């Protein structure tokens, strides 16, 4: 069985239910589906929006690479990863990962693994816009994200 990840980089929002249905429709061998949705937080009202920049082409390629690693490592039956770019408001979706598997731990691990690697190796950058309309700063990369990634070694 050769499963390939479903990977998309898009400015428009995604629909969680639609993506799950696409992954599981007609199947009777999936026992566990884990989804991760990352959303834009308003940082106690300080943030008016995030601007997501990406490296077109490379972003998709890295997500494909990460997705294939996860499919193989956790013997997943399906994997979807969607990352948005452009301006994103507080409360809106940024990223979606879905992992499907016969058993629960592989689905949890698969989705968690993909998020840890997306954070540290997929070429996306966040810039914060302040509530008063002025641009704030680029979000700094966190050591904690590298640590989270390194737990999979």
């Amino acid at each position: 069985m050769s499963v390939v990840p479903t990977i998309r980089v898009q400015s428009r929002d995604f629909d969680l239910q639609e993506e799950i249905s696409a992954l599981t429709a007609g199947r009777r061998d999936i026992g566990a589906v884990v989804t991760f949705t990352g959303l834009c937080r308003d940082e106690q009202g300080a943030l008016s929006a995030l601007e997501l920049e990406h490296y077109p082409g490379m972003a998709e390629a890295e997500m494909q690479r990460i997705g294939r690693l996860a499919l193989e490592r956790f013997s997943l039956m399906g994997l979807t990863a969607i990352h948005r770019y452009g301006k994103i408001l507080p409360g809106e979706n940024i990223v979606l990962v879905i992992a499907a598997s016969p058993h629960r731990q592989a689905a949890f691990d698969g989705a968690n693994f993909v998020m840890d690697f997306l954070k540290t190796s997929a070429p996306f950058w966040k810039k914060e816009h302040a509530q008063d309309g002025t641009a704030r700063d680029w979000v700094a990369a966190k050591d904690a994200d590298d640590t989270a990634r390194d737990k999979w070694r």
Partner: protein
Amino acid sequence: MSVKLVYFAWVRERIGKGEEEIELPDSVVTARDLLHHLKTLGEEYENALQYPEVIRVAVNQEHVEHSEKIAGAREIGIFPPMTGG
């Protein structure tokens, strides 16, 4: 060797452009050599690449270590650590 450079996030903002085609001298062999060469091209490059050790480099849209050779590169991406997800 002529190569297309693409910049992202604050590297792009500080250099003041998203991409450019430049001619590299023969002395530029590794990704690290490239970053140090770029720093000599002007104040905006110096400013963007002040701490080259934090900068990430991708050759033909794949991450590379700073010690890797860049021979054969058609496109080189230069950017800060990623903050997606």
